[in-house]
């Protein structure tokens, strides 16, 4: 047994650290460290810097302009990035759509979209969830009906099944999309959206779903912001009314969208534990607990708070090893089973515990609604004015991307049923 990285991996780690030390702009790192979060401009600048370095598509194959990293290199990059307070790479284009296009997309789609993802011309967002289809994603209702100009086949003269598309014939050169998507993260900055839409209405719900690329400038699309618990805007509702989408924007086969969604679910889940974020958060809480006082002494000397901190640290150390065990398995070509689901559950719970400690450590100073006007009052130590907001906002991480309840269902299905 050897828990350390190989010589080559250590050399890569040194290279990443050296790069981050010089290339990551200090103002961006400060905003990430404070929990205030990277702005749109920060994210675009950081993507640009990584693109120039050739690391933006880290795990992309070199033929598509990537760096061809394996799981361990990706892990090193992501962990070091988190420790340096770099913005996380936005996953929607780079880590979600791109692998789908590489696996299922036509050569034309790959040639058109992959370069635009890398150089930042396209900002993609995700259209999966609907008001009535959250955990039960397959029940989604946003529909795409094949049509030729003048009429929509799905309504006017569809087949006996009453819907378009079970026979695969040429029966229209575009889709008409109607419906509503929700929880679309950073959709306000995006120019394109990839959607799961219903193209068949009979049979199993999973069997009638297609994967469609939609230009957000198309008439009939409305994006409305959703304000979140702590007051911020990062998710949106997207409404589609008679939106015309060329059939050439279909990825993979019609009605095969569910396989694509499942492929994506199993793809690049190695950073799902977010250990880098947790290690960074733990260091910040420790530093904070040395600064603030209880009973005239630094909080870190308070036995109750110190116990909470030490317990969380032990949990985190165990999870780092669980994470490395999974990575090692993936790197040597092993088939992953329930590990990503386990890491998602434990990883989110640990991150949320650290958010809880960061809020708790402040005492009354956690109470003010974050505002730049208050910064010079230094009610909380510098960089900690968003601790309560961050705690509330991060309740999302155990809900999104398949809630922890859904992850447990996946695990139980694998472990308990024969």
């Amino acid at each position, binding site marked *: 047994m050897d828990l350390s990285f190989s010589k080559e991996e250590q050399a890569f780690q040194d290279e990443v650290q050296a790069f981050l030390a010089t290339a990551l702009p200090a103002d961006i790192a400060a905003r990430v460290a404070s929990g205030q979060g990277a702005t749109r401009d920060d994210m675009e600048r950081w993507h640009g810097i990584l693109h120039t370095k050739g690391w933006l598509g880290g795990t992309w194959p070199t033929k598509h302009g990537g760096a061809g990293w394996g799981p361990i290199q990706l892990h090193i990059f992501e962990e070091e990035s988190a420790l340096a307070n770099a913005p996380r790479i936005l996953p929607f284009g780079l880590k979600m759509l791109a692998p789908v296009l590489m696996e299922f997309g036509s050569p034309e789609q790959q040639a058109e979209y992959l370069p635009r993802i890398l150089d930042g011309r396209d900002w993609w967002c995700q259209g999966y*969830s609907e008001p*009535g*289809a*959250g*955990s*039960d994603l397959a*029940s989604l209702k946003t529909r795409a009906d094949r049509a030729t100009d003048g009429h929509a086949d799905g309504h006017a003269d569809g087949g006996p099944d009453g819907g378009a598309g079970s026979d695969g014939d040429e029966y229209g050169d575009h889709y008409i999309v109607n419906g509503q998507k*929700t*929880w679309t993260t950073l959709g306000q900055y995006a120019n394109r959206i990839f959607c799961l839409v219903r193209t068949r209405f009979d049979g199993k719900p999973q069997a009638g779903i297609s994967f469609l690329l939609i230009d957000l400038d198309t008439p009939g699309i409305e994006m409305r912001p*959703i*304000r*979140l*618990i*702590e*007051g911020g805007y990062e*998710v949106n509702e997207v409404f589609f009314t008679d939106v015309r989408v060329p059939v050439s924007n279909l990825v993979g086969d019609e009605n095969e969208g569910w396989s694509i969604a499942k492929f994506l679910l199993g793809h690049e889940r190695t950073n799902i534990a977010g250990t880098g974020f947790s290690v960074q958060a733990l260091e910040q809480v420790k530093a904070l607990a040395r600064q*603030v*006082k*209880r*009973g*005239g002494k630094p909080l870190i000397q*308070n036995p*109750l*708070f110190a116990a909470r901190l030490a317990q969380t640290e032990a949990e985190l150390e165990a999870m780092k090893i669980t994470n490395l065990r999974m990575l090692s398995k993936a790197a040597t070509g092993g088939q992953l089973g329930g590990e990503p689901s386990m890491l998602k559950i434990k990883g989110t719970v640990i991150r949320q515990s650290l958010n*809880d400690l960061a*809020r*708790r450590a*402040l*005492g*009354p*100073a*956690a*109470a*003010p*609604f*974050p*505002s730049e*006007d*208050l910064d010079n*009052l230094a*009610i909380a130590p510098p960089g900690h004015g968003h601790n*309560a*907001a961050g*705690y*509330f*906002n991060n*309740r*999302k991480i*155990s*809900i*999104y991307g398949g*809630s*922890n*309840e859904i992850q*447990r269902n996946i695990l139980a299905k694998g472990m308990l049923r024969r």
Partner: protein
Amino acid sequence: MNFEITDDRRMLAETLQRFLADTYPFEHRTAVAYDAPFHDPAKWAELADLGIFYALVTEEQGGMGGRGFDIVTLFEELGRALCPEPILGQLLAASLLNAPEPLMDGTRYALAVSELDAPYDPDDITTTADERDGWRLTGRKTVVYGAPAAEVLLVAAKGPDQVLSLFRVAAKDAEIIGYAMIDGGPAGEVFLEDTPAKLVTKDAGPALQNALDLGALALCAEALGAMEVVQATLIDYLSTRKQFGQPIGAFQVLQHRTIDLAIEIEQARSIVILAASAEGGSEFPKRAAQAKHLVGKIARQVSEEVIQMHGGIGLTWEYPLSHYAKRLVMIDHQLGDTDHHLERLMDGL
């Protein structure tokens, strides 16, 4: 044995409940709680007209309440409506004043104790009081609940002999920077620099601790009212939200978690009743600490679980539940958190 509240208190609860339901709907609450002055002065005046503040003051002091169960009855209703009016400041002042008439008529008070390095324990404060040309106070008080709305501040400060005393300061004589709390409602920073003050009580440590314990009891009752609302909201959601072809409340894992919360909420109610019944007796500090310790823990658990079981909708500003959930967590940041009160209990073992 009788766990019924008295008719007088029931009437108070019903009056307040009706007033808040009729005139303080949730949209109004959200509209006022996050923008200056972070509450609704007109509604405050109506609450004064209703005689609500008389319920904070004992009969010996000329009021009509002020006992443990008066406080619990009142604050449970405020919690149910998630009312942002800074009535807690009024309660904290009530037991400390020799002549509380203006308070009962609606003059707004805030109690300034916490400091940056003394968040919860009054013994740690460093604000000083000097007697020259009357009393003068110097220091900074932090996150003073109700400060931007207050007309009168009661300030804890240490005299030349290091004795903790209580002073009265006209709000206009202090520099106050107000802001909304993350869960809504007014708080502020109070800067004192040779600020003129009047002595209210010398050697005020025990009186101050009693006021803080009454405040802790009030916050526990507020949490209880809020928890009952979120519990009802959760149960309603579980029975109406459908996924996988059935109400999500049909899933056993959610049923069990809902029941676990129900058990905890009953525990919270019981410790609040115990603390309220101890008010005025020698056991009250211990009971108040037990209540604030348990309720702090339970309220956070309830908040996190109702959000998780709702999913994304529970994290939206538009859905009232999210504001209740914030309040339930942030109550632990007022007047001592669950660990602070646990330490008091450990010291008393």
